[in-house]
């Protein structure tokens, strides 16, 4: 229980968009309590040299933004994770727990104590890691010509077709993007095919995501259609950049390959038993809420994904924590089409 002095009007000063009911020093400090949360949920973008406009991994860089952090967290704008809480369960969810939210806000209104200074090793870990985070890739793809982001470009989407040159089918098991322009590269969407418009969706990559586990069969001579989104920060406006980001691939990880399907109608009925593995919504109207539910043949309805505030910049593939077994005749219902799904057909045991 805090003393009444905790709740007195001690607001030492930070001016910003809003000012909360400031309190006395928080029981949480940056070094011990706050930074570990930032490392886990924010550091992929908000590190020195990263795509985030400021680092949150060292105290002097993070603390001037304390009030902004508070409002971004309270409004659920950051960390950017679109699925509603309590509906579905997905791998690599970036949402904060109730305790983490409370800890961060308590720290902000409680005068942002630093705790002990960071060690040299911790500071070094705050810098951008420039190598591959996965093991050495089996194949590295890069555009033949650098992509130009011109002075007048604020946001630029480019599509590349990268030949893999595979001389036999291989199962893609891991993929990673090594950004050439880490401060501008916001999202990479990868498909199988020779055009971004018609490619079969495979993966999304977002800054800080590291490598992405996959199980997709690439045919002999496959092309990857790669859509890259660049967004400039205010510091980069009016500047010209060139980029040759690389995509690293690893093959044959041993997982059962998945199949991809684009569902363009509001209801899709499965004509075989499947395990639903992943969802990649591609809604017609990004301003509308999005809901995806499954209905089994015996009428059981389960909402598996709900997004109230669909922010297209943060669209990504959602991989279910546990694949969802759906018997033949089950329906997938979309509040608005379309969506890519990944699934594994399941063979029924023989009747004999």
């Amino acid at each position: 229980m805090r003393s009444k002095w905790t709740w007195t009007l001690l607001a030492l000063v930070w001016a910003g968009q809003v000012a909360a009911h400031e309190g006395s020093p928080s029981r949480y400090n940056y070094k011990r309590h706050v930074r570990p949360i930032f490392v886990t949920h924010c550091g992929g973008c908000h590190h020195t040299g990263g795509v985030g406009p400021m680092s949150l991994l060292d105290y002097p860089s993070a603390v001037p933004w304390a009030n902004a952090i508070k409002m971004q967290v309270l409004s659920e704008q950051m960390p950017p994770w679109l699925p509603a809480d309590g509906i579905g369960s997905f791998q690599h969810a970036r949402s904060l727990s109730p305790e983490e939210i409370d800890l961060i806000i308590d720290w902000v209104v409680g005068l942002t104590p630093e705790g002990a200074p960071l060690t040299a090793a911790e500071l070094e870990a705050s810098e951008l890691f420039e190598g591959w985070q996965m093991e050495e890739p089996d194949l590295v793809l890069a555009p033949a010509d650098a992509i130009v982001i011109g002075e007048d470009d604020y946001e630029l989407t480019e599509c590349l077709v990268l030949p893999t040159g595979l001389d036999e089918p291989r199962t893609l098991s891991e993929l990673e993007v090594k950004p050439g322009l880490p401060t501008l590269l916001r999202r990479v969407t990868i498909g199988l095919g020779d055009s971004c418009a018609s490619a079969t969706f495979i993966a999304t990559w977002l800054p800080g995501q590291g490598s992405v586990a996959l199980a997709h069969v690439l045919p002999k001579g496959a092309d990857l259609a790669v859509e890259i989104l660049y967004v400039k920060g205010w510091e980069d406006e009016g500047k010209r950049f060139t980029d040759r980001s690389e995509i690293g691939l690893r093959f044959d990880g041993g997982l059962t390959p998945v199949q991809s399907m684009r569902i363009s109608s509001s209801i899709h009925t499965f004509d075989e038993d499947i395990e639903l593995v992943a969802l990649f919504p591609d809604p017609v109207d990004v301003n509308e809420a999005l809901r995806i539910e499954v209905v089994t043949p015996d009428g059981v309805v389960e909402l598996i994904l709900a997004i109230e505030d669909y922010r297209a910049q943060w669209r990504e593939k959602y991989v279910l924590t546990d694949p969802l077994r759906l018997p033949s005749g089950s329906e997938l219902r979309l509040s608005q089409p379309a969506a890519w799904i990944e699934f594994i057909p399941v063979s029924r045991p023989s009747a004999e």
Partner: protein
Amino acid sequence: MTGTCLLAFVLSVPLQTVERESFEVWLCPVHRDEQATGLDHCPVCDREMVQRLLVPSYSCPMHQHIDQEDSGSCPICNMNLVPTTRELEWFCPNKPELTSSLPGGKCPDGRSMHMRSIAMAHGDHNPKHGGLLFMAPNGFHHIEGTLDDAGTFQLYVYNDFTKPIDASGFEARVGDTPLLPASDAAILTANIGVPESYPAELVVHVGFPGAHEDEARFDFIFASEIAAAEETATTIVLPEFRIPETSDGIFEAILNRDARVQELIGRGVWPDLYIPALEAKDLVLALHKKEGARVSAPAKKLVRAAWLLDVYGDMGNRLEVEKAYRLFEQSIQELEAARAQ
């Protein structure tokens, strides 16, 4: 985002290095409310930040130099003292210009420096004229509104030390009626007529000098000319609070806090909202610890809503408070549903 600044860096929990319980912060010696971006130097004047010790204090709304450890009345005007926070400072009686922010200093004559306390930024959010006081969204300005029995609404303008400042750069209106400068330069005033009944609710919009953002909204709700002063004078006292042992007891306590929040919103006592809201937040975290994942989603929503009630309660903005409350209410309904499953 607008520039966020940090003036004080707290380095430790309360110290016992002086006679009174205190805690340690770092401040710019001159620009105590300006932006600071690191521990070393003030970004405005590049002076080294200095260590300061802060103490809780009871002071007089009218005589800010009054500093007592316990509640009581002002020895000058007999007004009830109100809780504040002050900085400690050490000085030489024979050379008052020689000061130190830390104990243990010696004066030129070899004698020990004497301790005194001084007002500090945001150390006193108590109304000075029996009205309702809010902090502006810019985190610097503060305003207080009063309504007298002749229907005159007065807006007092303060800085972050709750000291009156010149109001001539402000543009403000109560409803559609512009507030005009009074004879006292720190006051804007308008006669809005005697309210037909109480509580009287006045929506005041204020444009702050030098601000780039839109004018800010403040909802003043006067229970009566007298009651407003009584309410604000007692806003700091917290009821006894403990976490019940059982999950049902915790949920019941959350419902009690919800009722208290509703009651405060109904009366427009915005500055007090944080008390039941943050208690409900602590309760739901305790419930989450007991009941686990099944209440995670509503617990998270309630934590967010409670802090938003705290934020917007301080700013006296009814619209934002009500928006935060809808989230709060929804979270409790979802909590009940989750527990019923």
